[in-house]
């Protein structure tokens, strides 16, 4: 019997990989080449055949073989896991009666604290001399005219202590005043500022933050409040913390509230018990509840609430992707794992006067569904027909991944592989006596992208994906950038003009500017924390489930695989987290040259060869 030409094909959530090899009669394997392409459709459904064929044809073309030379195509039994995502805001900041303005304009004017009575610039000429005035200027006023009006009033003897402007004119006005006062500008809804009320305006020096209005007792001092009223204004002070400028208007019942939105109850049904948890309690409470009911049988959201909508949306998406006329209703789909992540969403404050943005708390939920049946057989039949060769299911994904990972130099049994994918994080362990166990937990790369997108308010999945994948830099001149670790790199050719002075993502196609005012450090922190909260948490969760007695210390080798293991920092974050447990952890290097890719496809070939040899 001569050598056989076989190709292992792994259809994953986002990529389809192929590994071409010659298998000798005794099971000796000669690897010829590998290929990678995007998965078409949902893995394991007939739609994914197209991607599998592309991968096979590509690897054949690479090594100059014809499809009719193929002896066999080996497909993996795809893990019947599909995951979905949802995110819901759980807090909301509301300002009533326009009590405060805390939007941090880029360039306020003047410096210091001014306390007086709000008066429109139109009424300033009639303002009584004895009363300190906080002048409110509507939109459409020119800075020359505003400065003139204020100077006239001061000349008349009125004590002008501060000004609040609609336009971006604070520095211009201050520069033209004979006696400078603190000026806050860019208050878009300035017409809503109540007039004739006591108000305080504070502007701090550049690089400083306000001290009086961000302090509850500071506000109490300014407005002469009693203890009850002081209790009431404490949220105002908290909302203004960290600003360079602020306005507080004393109205009879104005308030700032940080309201929790009733999101609903999540019902987790476990093997033996059912636990209900309020989603607005946050991710920690949800994950604690989940730990109590393990293993999870299904999860439901209270109908008519946000969480009900969230889970229904996840179910519907899955029902759609699996829709094939078999009539599996959304209700039949059981959610088998949930990952909750605390996040925040910058949202416009309700009742705000200047488009103030508050960071509202939100919960992101990744849910995972196990499908009851696999349709790989159908895929195999179509592949066989298209390529006019034999196509078989060569093995189960988890086991194949372990076999592939074992081709990494320096790895031996017992080993655990962690596949950091797009939708789910999977772990499979092979013990010394050959027992293989696999677990799947919800949440992976896509959830990270989602968190980055919402926390940076990018509103662009593609850009968020880039932020996740590549390091950042700040373009400091046309000839040099400062990388996120502080090193400077110079260029001979000037950089493109649209990246000048911006925070950029260093993609392989060149720097891409981010549409954010945040500093490089802030973006980097968001990115790293998102990865930490998803991948590190999930890896530990998955490893605990496969480790003997749930004890991470009893693991020996952990090999990281999958697209996200190629990331420039995720493997380091995970290795850091595992360092304390004495585990050997690193990114796999399948076949010694494929990195963390191609493990399952190589594993399929290895399993086939073992079958021949054994």
């Amino acid at each position: 019997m001569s050598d056989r030409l076989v190709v292992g094909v792994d259809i994953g959530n986002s990529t389809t990989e192929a590994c071409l090899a010659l298998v000798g009669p005794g099971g000796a394997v000669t690897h010829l080449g590998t290929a990678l392409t995007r998965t078409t459709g949902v893995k394991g459904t007939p739609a994914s055949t197209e991607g599998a064929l592309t991968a096979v044809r590509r690897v054949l073309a690479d090594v100059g073989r014809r499809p009719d030379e193929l002896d066999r195509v080996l497909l993996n039994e795809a893990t019947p896991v599909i995951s979905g995502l949802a995110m819901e805001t759980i807090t909301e900041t509301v300002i009533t009666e326009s009590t405060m303005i805390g939007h941090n304009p880029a360039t306020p004017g003047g410096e210091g604290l001014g306390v007086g009575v709000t008066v429109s610039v139109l009424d300033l000429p009639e303002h009584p001399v004895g009363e300190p005035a906080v002048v409110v200027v509507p939109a459409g006023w020119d800075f020359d005219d505003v400065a003139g009006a204020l100077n006239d009033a001061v000349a008349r003897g009125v004590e002008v202590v501060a000004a609040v402007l609609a336009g971006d004119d604070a520095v211009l006005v201050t520069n033209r005043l004979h006696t400078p006062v603190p000026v806050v500008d860019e208050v878009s809804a300035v017409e809503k500022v109540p007039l004739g009320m006591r108000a305080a305006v504070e502007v701090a020096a550049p690089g400083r933050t306000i001290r009086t209005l961000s302090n509850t007792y500071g506000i109490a001092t300014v407005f002469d409040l009693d203890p009850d009223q002081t209790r009431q204004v404490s949220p105002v002070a908290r909302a203004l913390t960290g600003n360079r400028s602020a306005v507080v208007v004393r109205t009879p019942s104005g308030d700032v509230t940080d309201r929790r939105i009733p999101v609903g109850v999540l019902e987790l049904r476990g093997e033996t018990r059912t636990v209900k948890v309020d989603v607005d309690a946050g991710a920690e409470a949800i994950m604690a509840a989940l730990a109590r009911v393990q293993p999870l049988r299904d999860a439901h959201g209270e109908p008519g609430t946000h969480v009900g909508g969230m889970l229904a949306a996840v179910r519907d998406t899955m029902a759609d992707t699996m829709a094939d006329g078999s009539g599996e209703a959304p209700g039949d789909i059981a959610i088998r794992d949930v990952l909750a992540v605390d996040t925040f969403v910058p949202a416009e404050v309700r009742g705000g006067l200047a488009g103030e943005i508050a960071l509202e708390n939100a919960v992101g939920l990744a849910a995972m569904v196990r499908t009851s049946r696999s349709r790989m057989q159908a895929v195999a039949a179509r592949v066989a027909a298209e390529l006019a060769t034999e196509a078989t299911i060569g093995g189960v994904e988890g086991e194949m991944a372990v076999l592939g990972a074992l081709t990494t130099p320096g790895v031996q049994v017992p080993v655990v592989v962690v596949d950091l994918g797009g939708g789910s994080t999977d772990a499979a362990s092979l013990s010394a006596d050959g027992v293989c166990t696999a677990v799947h937990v919800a949440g992976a790369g896509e959830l990270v992208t989602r968190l980055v997108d919402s926390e940076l308010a990018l509103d662009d999945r593609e850009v968020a994906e880039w932020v996740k994948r590549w390091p950042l830099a700040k373009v400091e001149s046309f000839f040099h950038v400062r990388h996120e670790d502080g090193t400077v790199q110079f260029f001979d050719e000037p950089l493109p003009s649209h990246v000048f002075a911006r925070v950029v993502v260093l993609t392989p196609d060149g720097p891409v500017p981010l549409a954010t005012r945040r500093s490089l450090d802030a973006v980097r922190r968001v990115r790293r924390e998102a990865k930490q909260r998803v991948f590190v948490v999930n890896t530990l969760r998955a490893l605990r489930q496969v480790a003997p007695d749930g004890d991470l210390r009893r693991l020996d080798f952990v090999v990281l695989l999958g697209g996200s293991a190629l990331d420039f920092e995720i493997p380091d974050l995970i290795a850091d987290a595992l360092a304390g447990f004495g585990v050997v952890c690193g990114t796999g290097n399948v076949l010694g040259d494929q990195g963390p890719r191609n493990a399952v496809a190589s594993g399929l070939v290895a399993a086939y060869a073992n079958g021949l040899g054994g």
Partner: protein
Amino acid sequence: MTTLDAPAERTLTLRETGPATRGTRPDEVLVAVSPAFGDPFTQTIVGVPHAEVLRQLMAGIEEQGVGVRVVRVWNTADLAAIAHIAARLSGSGVSVGLLSRGTTMIHQKDLPRLSNLELFPQSPLLDAPVFRAIGSNAAQYAKGESPQPVPTRNDQMARPRWQAKAALLHLKEFECIRADAGPVELEVTIERAAG
């Protein structure tokens, strides 16, 4: 009391104070005007007074706490050339170039002459708030910040409608070129017209 809706008539006086020199302060933006700016032309293609154009540009720069110098480039009416000459004279390396008809560009000294940081090619669409925003952005570039580019409006009809007038204005501007004169420093006085 006047507002932006009914802008006060202001007069613009540009007095030459000598040859323009290279600035040393890193906190300045250079504004360079074309040969005919202010005299003989006094307004842009759509009638925005040159006094208001300069006032708003300079206000945008001042609001950011950045200094401004104004120069006139005599030997060309090409916007990229005007802006680039100014960028090389600017202490921060950032300049704003202005043509009489209103076309505007933000330039930086390290860029190739025909490139730019921001270009506002459709002069009929530029009004006072846009000039303010351009000044503000130029100043932010000078400070090394990352401003959002000023939204450029686009009007499909601007070209057919205004092209003839723009061509005539350009010819007239071209006639004011003094090929042998270098850039000169200008002292800007903007005063409210009497009455």
